[in-house]
């Protein structure tokens, strides 16, 4: 039995669901304890209809948002809808059910109006630790299976009719390094209640049948919009490949290879031919692979359209089982966030052939390492959960943005906050000159962050990439400079270390993370010399870099363009 929803009511309910998702996020961030949630914004929120279809989301992290759509249905397989009661909260962090690694804890709360189930409020928060072999639970090297990575919850009822199951909380407390996890899970519950209350208010105002139909309409109409937008892309099959550096010290690269087909029934991303799953905490479960496919397609079609079950129906991921991008359980996956960039970028590279003016070149990579400390006196554990974020790839008509998350979304860590919480000193956070991929439009610069250890020792689990394969440029744009990680010790001097290695740090060791630069777009010899001069003045590019990468000759004090020498140099470079 379906109700007709007039355009005004539809608009109001739509807006209400979107703002409910945003309000859940604000509540979660303000009530959380861990740095990952409150400073890193590593969480996401969404509202679902009573059948478990995703209707609206808050603007948080694409990896969570894209995976979330399937989570409710998978949870309901364990707890059928008719068994649920108001105030219930189900959790799961299973990589296949959720978003591909154990720290991401999903919480699903049914929303009732009186006795009727009207939908679900869902959020996912990245827990700063979920146990396993190393602090932060994102270790890559030496991890053979998922059982080494922490405690895993298949769908489990954490709150029953509003009452917390203290035994489950006790199990969690016993298995994680940081007590903040308990506080963050309470915060998740508060956030879902806030979202649920907003959905109840809509149901009370408009009636359950109207709310139900409006949610259905929203999903169906989003699908139509997405279908039309995909229809405006040039149909065909487009291929692209790139590599992930490796899966730990002394290992081979992972081939990331896609065939993206744009057809009448949507976009299909086929990973056949990509590398096999590996014995390292890096594999990308299918839900996660698919999440970044959604993000890539959305960014070249309808970036501002709300994402829901309807838009998602138009985008399919195919990956052979046992492939790195669709591993079999119990493949380990703790560090899979670092793969997000590669998933997005190979799809972007393929889409560049269909929509060259809508894509971006490869981004800087980001680092997401952890360092664990234990205080010798108190026994208290603290974790530096880091995000070192570089720049965005250039696009047709514009330089890539500096120091901006892409495609992953999150927030960096204030040094003042980190130093309050952990025995470290942040010595440097700055952009790296001459790291951006040159182009008619250049990429964003790489980011450097240096951190000194003030404790006698710490365990460092690095997590980065693009130390071996540069971020690609497009349409003649140059790739960005490689990233690297150094440990500078007072006794042994500096040494380059591996992007995914595990290291024991001593007091006064300095870790220096340096991300890659992002790729450029278009021929750098066509870049406006004035733009090059501006970059040199602002120290993004050196005088030598201007000459070497752009064929622009700068001289004098203050610096000025030598037009004649520039023209001559550019002629000779083109001829070469």
């Amino acid at each position, binding site marked *: 039995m379906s109700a007709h929803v007039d355009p005004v009511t539809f608009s109001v309910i739509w807006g209400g669901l979107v703002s409910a998702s945003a309000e859940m996020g604000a509540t979660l961030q303000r009530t959380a304890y861990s740095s990952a949630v409150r400073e890193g914004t590593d969480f996401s929120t969404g509202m679902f209809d009573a059948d478990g279809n995703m209707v609206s989301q808050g603007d948080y992290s694409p990896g969570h948002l894209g995976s979330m759509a399937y989570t409710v249905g998978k949870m309901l397989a364990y707890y059928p809808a008719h068994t649920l009661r108001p105030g219930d909260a189900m959790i799961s962090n299973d990589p296949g059910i959720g978003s591909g690694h154990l720290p991401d804890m999903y919480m699903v709360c049914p929303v009732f109006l009186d006795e009727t189930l009207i939908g679900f409020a869902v959020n996912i928060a990245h827990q700063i630790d979920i146990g396993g072999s190393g602090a932060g639970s994102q270790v890559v090297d030496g991890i053979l299976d998922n059982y080494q990575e922490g405690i895993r919850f298949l769908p489990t009822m954490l709150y029953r009719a509003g009452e917390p199951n203290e035994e489950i909380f006790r199990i969690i407390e016993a298995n994680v390094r940081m007590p903040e996890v308990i506080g963050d899970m309470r915060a998740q519950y508060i956030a879902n209640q806030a979202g649920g209350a907003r959905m109840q208010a809509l149901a009370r105002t408009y009636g359950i049948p109207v709310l139900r139909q409006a949610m259905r309409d929203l999903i169906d109409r989003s699908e139509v919009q997405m279908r039309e937008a995909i229809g405006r892309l040039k149909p065909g099959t487009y291929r692209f490949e790139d590599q992930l550096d490796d899966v730990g010290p002394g290992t081979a690269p992972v081939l990331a290879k896609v065939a993206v087909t744009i057809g009448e029934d949507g976009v299909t991303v086929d990973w056949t031919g990509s590398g096999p799953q590996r014995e390292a905490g890096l594999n990308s479960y299918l839900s996660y692979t698919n999440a970044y496919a959604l993000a890539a397609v959305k960014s070249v079609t309808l970036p501002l359209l709300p994402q829901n079950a309807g838009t998602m129906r138009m985008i399919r991921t195919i990956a052979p089982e046992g492939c790195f991008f669709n591993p079999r359980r119990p493949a380990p996956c703790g560090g899979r966030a670092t793969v997000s960039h590669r998933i997005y970028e190979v799809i972007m590279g393929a889409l560049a052939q269909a929509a060259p003016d809508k894509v971006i070149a490869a981004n800087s990579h980001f680092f997401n390492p952890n360092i664990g400390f234990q205080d010798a006196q108190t026994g208290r554990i603290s974790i530096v959960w880091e995000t070192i974020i570089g720049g965005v790839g250039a696009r047709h008509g514009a330089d890539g943005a500096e*120091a901006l*998350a*892409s495609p992953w979304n999150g927030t960096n860590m204030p040094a003042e906050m980190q130093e309050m919480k952990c025995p470290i000193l942040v010595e440097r956070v700055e952009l790296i000159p001459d790291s951006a991929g040159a182009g008619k439009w250049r990429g964003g610069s790489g980011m450097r962050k240096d951190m000194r250890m003030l404790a006698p020792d710490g365990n460092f689990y690095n997590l980065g990439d693009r130390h071996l394969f540069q971020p690609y440029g497009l349409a003649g744009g140059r790739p960005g400079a490689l990233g690297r990680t150094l440990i500078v010790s007072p006794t042994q001097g500096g040494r380059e270390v591996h992007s995914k290695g595990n290291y024991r740090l001593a007091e006064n060791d300095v870790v220096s993370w340096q991300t890659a630069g992002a790729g450029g777009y278009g021929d750098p010899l066509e870049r406006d010399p004035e733009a090059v001069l501006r970059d040199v003045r602002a120290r993004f590019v050196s005088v030598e870099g201007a000459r070497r990468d752009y064929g622009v000759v700068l001289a004098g004090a203050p610096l000025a363009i030598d037009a004649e020498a520039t023209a001559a140099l550019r002629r000779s470079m083109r001829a070469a």
Partner: protein
Amino acid sequence: MALTVGIDVGGTFTDFALMDDRTGALRLGKVLTSADDPSRAVLAGLRTLLAEGGFDARDLAHAVHATTIATNTVIQRKGLPTALLTTEGFRDVLLIGRQRRFELYDNSIGKPRPIVPRELCFEVPERLMWDGSVRRPLDEDAVRTAALAIRASGAAGLGICFLHSYANPAHERRARDIVREVAPEVLVSISSEVSPVYREYERASTTVLNAYVMPVVSAYIGRIEDGLAEMGRRRSLYIMQSNGGIASGDYVRRHPIRIIESGPAAGVLTAARYAEAAGTSNLISFDMGGTTAKVCLIENGRPGMTETFEVDMINLKPNSGIPMNIPAIDLVEIGAGGGSIARAEMGGIKVGPISAGSSPGPICYGLGGREPTVTDANLVLGYLNPDYFLGGTMALDLDAARAGIMERVATPLGMTLEEAAWGIYEVVSTQMAQAARAVSIGKGRDPRHFALIPFGGAGPLHGAELARQLGCGRVVFPKGAGVETAIGLLMADPAFDVARTSILALKPENLPRINELLAGLAADTGRELDACGVDGERHLVASCDMRFVGQGYELTVELPAGPYRAEDAETIRQAFLRTYAATYGERAFDPKAPIEGVLWRMAASIRTPRLTHPDLPADGTGAGAGVALKGRRPAYFRDRRRAEPCDVYDRYLLPAGARFTGPAIVEERESTIVLPPGAAAQVDAKGNLVVDFGG
């Protein structure tokens, strides 16, 4: 004889309210704003007003001013070149920001144009730790070298922000002294004074904004003070700050960033003045203009406060603008105004955040606008009078508005013209209701216990509908629409906020330190109160941003009067738990968990006896509403589903005590009040229109 004048500079008009302090008699005025230099219209308008009233300018004791000069300087990047000096290794702190995307999938997004270009960011060796201890002393020679380079660059302003300076200002103060020696012409702001709060990006951003607006604000205040001096008085200028308190010109010269929300704060304070008319001091201030609407919750007569907000946002999206950490009245601003553009999207109606502004403006203005706006919908619904817009000074093109809504909204959605216009009206009202719910229900307050105070050009058109959606039982439409803010300025008191970061666990042994800290803050505010030159009863309110140990965001909790003894630790703890439960719910926390204070604040104000509530003269002599009836015209309302004849009143002729019921339209020069069926209106003794909804 003593006169006080309130002056509010808006985008289009500069409004004046001149009051005789002894009798409370008011004289109002309005002139066009002089956009290139707003002080010109301020001074010229004031001279005219004084002359028209036959006053002697020497009797002007106080001028209280709300200004957009600081905001406009930032948004239009009209300030002089400004530099940053920071800790070695952190030169890029402003450029990097917090790095979050404000649109997830849109690859064309960028960052706000920087206030300080990268080539004007300098760094020096020095380092403090979070407890304020010195790890590396300040390299004074390096400061000198940097000061020379800053001087050579031609920068007019400098913000100094060293890491952890909120815990120890010594390095910043020393660096400022050196810069003043080497480059005396550079105006310096230091973060430990501008915003002593942890998180380096937000603090640095606030500090450079202060430095950036300082030369412009300082010169502006100088022009107004000189102009007032020419009229015969000096040192009589007060300016509205973002926190709702007024401050002297001298104070604002040192802390110019504190007036960035001057105008909106004055608006909210004005709304707060209608508690008596509303019969409650729980109010929702609702200010709707051409491009945005601003909503603020006023609880027990006090507007909600925030400690952090953004300027120069893109489509008002969180994280898209430049953040600032200064105390300000907590306004939610959304992209919903009279000029907001409506369109059909996915079978629904979308309104805003894009606005046609005043140029090209709504279709009905006939200035080239082609996309239907909220104002066009109000015209089609019969709410606006095409012949009496801005008092009849601007004719509206009804046919063009109809055609535009038909083409862009009604036809694509299969609706009638009236349904589509009503849809636009309802959708935009709903967006504002959502914003109001976020600041009320989202913080544990029930909007049904609040009265709504609509103002601004479009506020009275949507106030009743907004109240209906929120369940507010009463709406007060203030008399004097269009110049309420200038009147509100007459009522404002001096207020100063100071704060200091010090992370202290809430336990009895820390109370002596807490007492010492608060006494220091009280002394700081005392000096500002002494200097402001206003006499009256002083009020000090201490508060603290507290959290459970391990959390990263705090809740502001008002503290009981000190000094504290050991048993007060439990009292303060209970106050925090009550605030937490009210905000996030009873089940949200473990009540046994330890608590700490982070940021200690003191809010000081002076209640001035001279500022009485002026009575606007009540017209008429107990006649009925009928004397003000101008006529009838068809207007569309939700429940009737078609346009029906509706009474139209002239607000200026409505006598005190007059009663009438909706549907009705009340016209005044700058706005129009729309009363739906069932609304019961009464004009109170002060000329306010008080509207109650059935039950």
